């Protein structure tokens, strides 16, 4: 299936917005970026999963802001509603449902060792990807006009060119629904 | 009789077996079904034998394109080389259903599948088809041994399965190599065995794949020193499986050598024939001597079978017409003698609950008919003139002498080695005094007697009047040495020790 069916020439002349907007957008980016990284770091470091989850929500919200900066209006909304809203509240509900006490948590005495080791292992991967990114053209990211990233445009794309994968996703969502009921729904009869 | 006789012979038992496995049939129904199907195969086999015209080339050919882009086809046919192996596979199995009446459903179903797969492997004229049937053939044996075998069956089953599959994989590699070489030399794909003879193979790679083939078949035959799976497997397998293994499957190994190695790798075979022939002779002596130390009747016969297979394999490696014809003849003779002996041992075991030579004795006095049948099969297996065993053995020794005097002389010792353990066994089991184990030994029932009678008669007829049988084989074996392989004739026909023994070929 041809994923690039038509030339979407939506880009407007955006120079009149001026340097200040770009500066402002850059500031916003850096702010969100820092918040996202901090949140992610918190997720990795907090001992209690509830703290981690709260911290992760911060990251998700910051990411939603970044999507907005990238003119992805629908994804911005979905990120807030589905991710930060639905998925994370599900996680938090489960964490609270299990009523985890600090003594239930694993004793991770060697956590720091693993963290540092992990960082070292991960380093080449990151560097490699950085190198890859460097080979790409670098464009500025000013807001694109109304014809990009809205519900209508993405919806048209979704239902015209991605209909079958979309339906598959529907089935995919059905499967864990059933699976979750089967797995978690038992009342320990088998014990 | 009709066009697709071979396909019917292959797929009738396989399909019946699969259907039996899937339906909740009782063991009695399974046995009757198996018996009927095997009798049908027997009738088809006899019909095929009668209509076999002995032209020397493939007859009853069926050919359908299967994977045309790679030149793989569903290609079946019978000629003088596989006719007798086919007969062994199609005529002997009804006995098993008649003699072993109380086994499980899966036992009979597996037996059917084994028969179909063996017939398929024997008739296949395409290497890929051959390989597929070759592998299918092992599966029923795996299940029969693993499910219905003796007390130590699991290690034996695993050993035979892994050992054989290891060999098969080598063969697969060699088959692919042949196909690719054919493509490289003739710029078209083909896996037909008859096309491979046109290949011009030389160099290290060809030698490597030559040994791949040889090892695959050597494991199945089994050729010394690849025989170590055999004693355990033959002993632990249920008697019917032992019978199938020794009477037919081992022969398919020999047949494979004749079919694949002799025409295709003629140069390599000529170069290494002496090595392989020695392996056959050493195996014959080694297993024959080991047999004398056995206390278990079945294990002794297992070694005896391995010993005879060494001689049969030797006949193939001698690369002259007498030895090759003798080998093919001996294939049937061995199937009817040692194969039947295995069945007899199964009978002894079921009547006395013992297979130990020391627990038995005096059966001849209690069961004269049984003793007579056993003695005839035994004498055939030691190659007494007047039985089928002599013709094949003598032709092989004759050919071996031409090939190499010392190989021939040592091959001749089979006359002595075989007799030593067989007589010892016969003495301890059938002669001497009866004991509580054997004092109530019942003679063959009418059904059993009538079951074995045709085979016993066949042993004698094939020994006294072998010409009609030999004349079916010789046209094909003559073609094998008809001059299309001059290299072979020159390399091998020179007997270094006695140049006078070399008869010039025109």
């Amino acid at each position, binding site marked *: 299936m041809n994923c*690039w069916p038509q030339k*979407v020439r*939506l*880009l407007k002349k955006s120079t009149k917005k001026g340097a200040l907007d770009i500066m402002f957008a850059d500031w916003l980016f850096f702010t969100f970026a820092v918040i*996202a*990284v901090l949140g*992610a770091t918190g*997720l*990795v470091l907090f*001992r209690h*999963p509830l703290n*981690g*989850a709260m911290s*992760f929500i911060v*990251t998700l919200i910051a*990411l939603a802001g*970044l*999507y907005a900066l*990238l003119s*992805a209006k*629908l994804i911005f909304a*979905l*990120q807030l509603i*589905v*991710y930060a809203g639905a*998925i994370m509240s599900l*996680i938090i509900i*489960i*964490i609270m449902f*299990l009523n985890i006490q600090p003594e*239930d*948590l*694993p004793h991770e005495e060697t956590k720091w060792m*693993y963290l540092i080791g992990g*960082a070292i292992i*991960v380093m080449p*991967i*990151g560097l490699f*990807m*950085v190198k890859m*990114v*460097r080979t790409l053209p670098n464009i*500025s*990211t000013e807001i694109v006009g109304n014809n*990009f*990233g809205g519900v209508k445009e*993405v919806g048209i*794309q*979704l239902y015209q*060119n*991605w209909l079958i994968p979309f339906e598959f*996703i529907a089935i*995919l*969502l059905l499967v*864990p629904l059933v*699976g*979750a009921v089967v*797995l*978690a729904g038992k009342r*320990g009869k088998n014990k | 009789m009709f066009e697709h006789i071979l396909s019917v012979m292959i797929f009738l038992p396989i399909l019946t077996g699969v259907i039996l496995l899937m339906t909740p049939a009782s063991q009695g129904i399974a046995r009757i079904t198996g018996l009927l199907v095997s009798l049908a195969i027997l009738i088809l086999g006899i019909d095929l034998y009668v209509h076999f015209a002995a032209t020397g080339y493939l007859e009853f050919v069926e050919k359908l394109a299967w994977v045309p882009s790679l030149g793989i086809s569903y290609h079946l046919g019978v000629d003088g080389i596989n006719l007798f192996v086919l007969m062994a596979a199609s005529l002997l199995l009804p006995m098993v259903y008649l003699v072993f009446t109380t086994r499980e459903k899966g036992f009979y179903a597996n037996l059917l599948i084994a028969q179909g797969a063996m017939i398929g492997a024997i008739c296949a004229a395409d290497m890929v088809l051959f390989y597929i049937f070759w592998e299918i053939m092992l599966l029923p044996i795996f299940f029969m041994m693993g499910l219905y075998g003796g007390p130590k069956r699991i290690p034996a089953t695993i050993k035979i399965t892994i050992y054989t599959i290891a060999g098969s994989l080598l063969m697969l590699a060699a088959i692919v190599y042949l196909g690719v070489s054919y493509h490289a030399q003739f710029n078209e794909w083909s896996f037909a065995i008859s096309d491979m003879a046109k290949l011009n193979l030389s160099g290290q790679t060809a030698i490597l794949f030559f040994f791949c083939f040889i090892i695959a078949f050597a494991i199945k035959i089994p050729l010394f020193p690849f025989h170590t799976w055999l004693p355990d497997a033959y002993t632990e397998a249920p008697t019917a499986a032992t019978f199938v293994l020794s009477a037919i499957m081992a022969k398919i190994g020999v047949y494979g050598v004749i079919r694949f190695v002799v025409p295709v790798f003629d140069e390599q075979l000529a170069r290494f024939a002496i090595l392989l022939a020695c392996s056959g002779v050493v195996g014959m002596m080694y297993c024959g001597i080991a047999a004398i130390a056995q206390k278990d009747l079945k294990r002794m016969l297992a070694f005896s079978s391995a010993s005879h297979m060494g001689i049969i394999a030797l006949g193939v490696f001698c690369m002259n017409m007498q030895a090759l014809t003798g080998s093919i003849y001996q294939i049937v003779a061995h199937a009817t003698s040692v194969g039947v002996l295995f069945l007899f041992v199964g009978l002894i075991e079921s009547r006395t609950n013992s297979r130990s030579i020391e627990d038995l004795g005096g059966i001849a006095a209690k069961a004269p008919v049984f003793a007579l049948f056993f003695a005839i099969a035994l004498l055939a297996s030691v190659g007494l003139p007047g039985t089928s065993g002599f013709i094949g053995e003598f032709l092989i020794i004759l050919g071996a002498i031409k090939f190499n005097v010392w190989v021939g002389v040592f091959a001749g010792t089979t006359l002595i080695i075989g007799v030593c353990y067989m007589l010892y066994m016969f003495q301890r089991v059938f002669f001497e005094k009866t004991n509580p184990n054997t004092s109530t030994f019942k003679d063959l029932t009418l059904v059993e007697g009538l079951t074995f009678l045709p085979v016993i008669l066949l042993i004698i007829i094939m020994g006294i009047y072998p010409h009609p049988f030999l004349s079916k084989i010789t046209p094909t074996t003559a073609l094998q040495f008809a001059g299309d392989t001059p290299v072979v004739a020159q390399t091998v026909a020179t007997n270094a020790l006695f140049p006078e023994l070399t008869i010039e070929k025109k």
Partner: protein
Amino acid sequence: MIHNYLFLSIILFCLGIVGVIARRNVFTVFMSIELMLNAGILALIAFARLHVHMDGHVLAMMVMAVAAAEAALALAVVILLHKHKSKLDTNVFSLLKG
């Protein structure tokens, strides 16, 4: 600049990896995986912006859907494991040990 978004994506992804391999808490591990998914989504959106093409957005939606499905299933599994062992330590579950 678009590169910055991609760099951020890489940083988040690497943090996710570190979280998976360094932590033993089931929830943290799970959320680290979610973090990696989010890093992926960010990269997708950035590329969509780079090419000014909305396929990236569609893919991002799909990833979210997968994440949601995964969350449902994974949490069900966590509940089940907690029922059996009353532990949230990944090291407790070592049935694959050779």
